[in-house]
């Protein structure tokens, strides 16, 4: 359609911000019965450039588009990793994809973790269930650049031993120096030798956290309040607590309105927020 009668720029110049770019799946692995890991490479060969904590809109034509966090460290640029939990229409369909298949992505989207304020400080990551995915990118990054950070502690809580993800990750971390990994499950079984109880019980099991520690929280909605009650006890200021939030999203670019928390857009202003920023936003938790 030509626009002779008006001064709008021609259609060719209009980029459609909803058009995803092709990427190739180079490897997949089931990590639990419902979570699948995908190693992905941009089809045009460009490098992966993102911040830990940022996310992608992952789409499959005919099924839809969903937000998924980067799961690998940005230091690794040739390809990147995402982990998808099968919960519904799009995620189930994505699970059927295999090595060699194409996948369509928009991103990186969102703000990511505040690396500046984390650097040279002690860091605690509290991850519940799938919440580990978006923080995994950060964890890998910290371990990659270990000497740029202080003490590093990771809490991971799963519903039950069989819901644990990334066993390999944790086993590897446990063997590493300079990372303090504590795990718990809500409900144990005979195979489980570790801690049983909600994730906040882990606070009593370590002395590596203090009032200057930077805390990152990501997990199911109910988890936040309880974790913050613990950090409060330690006297950690709310400006040093970061939460990684999840909301329904349809665009990822601040238009569709689904992810709003009061006046904030999780996709644009987040998904990582300083807790102090959200305190007076009643809808955050």
């Amino acid at each position, binding site marked *: *359609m030509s*626009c*002779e*009668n*008006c*001064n*709008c*720029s021609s*259609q060719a110049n*209009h*980029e*459609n*911000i*909803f*058009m*995803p770019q*092709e990427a190739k799946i180079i490897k997949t692995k089931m990590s639990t019965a*419902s979570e699948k890991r995908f190693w992905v490479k941009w089809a045009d060969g460009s490098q992966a450039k993102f911040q830990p904590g940022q996310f992608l809109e992952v*789409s499959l*034509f*005919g*099924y*839809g*588009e969903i937000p998924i966090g980067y799961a690998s460290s940005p230091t690794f640029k040739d390809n990147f990793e995402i982990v998808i*939990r*099968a*919960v*519904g229409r799009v995620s189930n369909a994505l699970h059927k994809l295999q090595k060699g298949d*194409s996948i*369509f992505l928009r991103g990186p989207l969102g703000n990511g973790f505040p690396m500046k304020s984390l650097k040279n400080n002690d860091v605690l990551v509290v991850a519940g269930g*799938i919440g580990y995915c978006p923080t995994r990118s950060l964890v890998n990054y910290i371990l990659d650049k270990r000497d740029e950070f202080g003490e590093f502690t990771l809490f991971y809580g799963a519903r039950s031993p069989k819901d644990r993800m990334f066993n390999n990750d944790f086993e590897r971390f446990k063997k590493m120096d300079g990372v303090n990994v504590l795990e718990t499950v809500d409900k144990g079984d005979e195979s489980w030798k570790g801690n049983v109880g909600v994730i906040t019980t882990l606070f009593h099991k370590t002395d590596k956290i203090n009032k200057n520690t930077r805390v990152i929280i990501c997990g*199911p*909605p109910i988890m936040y309040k309880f974790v913050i009650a613990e950090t409060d006890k330690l006297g950690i200021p709310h400006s040093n607590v970061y939460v990684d939030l*999840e*909301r*329904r999203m*349809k*665009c990822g*670019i*601040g*238009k*569709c*309105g*689904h992810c*709003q*928390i*009061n*006046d904030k857009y999780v996709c*644009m202003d987040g998904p990582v927020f300083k807790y102090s920023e959200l305190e007076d936003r*009643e*809808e955050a938790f």
Partner: protein
Amino acid sequence: METKFINESGFQDFVGKLVESRNLVGPVAKRNKFVFGEINKYEDLRLDYDVTLLPPKKLFFPPKQDILKFYGQKGESCIDPDPQILLGVHFYDIKAIDMTDLLFRENNEDYNYLANRECTTIIGSNIQNVHDRAFFGSVGTEVEPKGHDGFLTKIEGGYVFEIITAKAKELLQFGDFQDANENQIKQAEKVNAEVLTKCSEKLNNTSAEINKKVRNSFDSKIWEKTAEDCFSCGSCNIVCPTCYCFDVQDDWYLDQETGVRARSWDGCLKEDFSEVSLGQGSIENFRETRGSRYRHRIMRKATYLNEKLGGPACVGCGRCSSVCTSDIADPVNVINQIMEE
């Protein structure tokens, strides 16, 4: 800026000529109401309308808009604007268009909207009849209507045509316009000022006062109480000129190979608007109660966007009030109540 005048019969010819050479859209009658629709002859154009059912946003951001088509593994953009002239927009809708322009442009430019918008010449017109639920006279008075290309005001004997952009000037070729004289310009100003006093509904406070008080009444009982009668039908969202939330769905065509990804108007009053899946069939709804959804809309209109927009995200058209079957959506009622609390 130039101001022109055209007499009644000249105006009829003008519209007739526009119909012949351009895609002309304006207010037309639909049963006992009005809608923005195609103008095929002068008689279709109803500048005496009070308000239209849907706001003009539908012309840039259709209720259902294809955003991409897919052919197996290939996607193709659907941006395909059609130049049009939108004639007869009331000033409150002009304000609203200016707001959605900003919202679709900020951060990520959404050309699915903007391409249609840029292809449209907007000619406003004065309000000849005031809708009984409108309150444009008392809301966001500090916000100037802008972004339109021209503005028509009906005065005795004809129309004063204020030309704001070249897009409007270009239309002069279709009519027998003269320069407006001072008296005519004054008359037009008077008409447009007077209409502000004609709304039967009225907010009792300034936008700034409202902004503060409403924001602080998040925990008020008024929300759940008013929303007891809410149907979660989202009608108040759909008809609002400043609501622009959407849902996106994919569908295959019958061949089951090709298909389309389309967005359609969504509304925060709908029950599943903020639902997310947690896996194993469980669902979390971040605004679970009718009251919390109802509150979100009023908050958004009265406070959340004020800083960004320079005033409230409500232009006082009264559409939501008249469309709400249980008559609870009216911002005037609930805001005035809060202000008295």
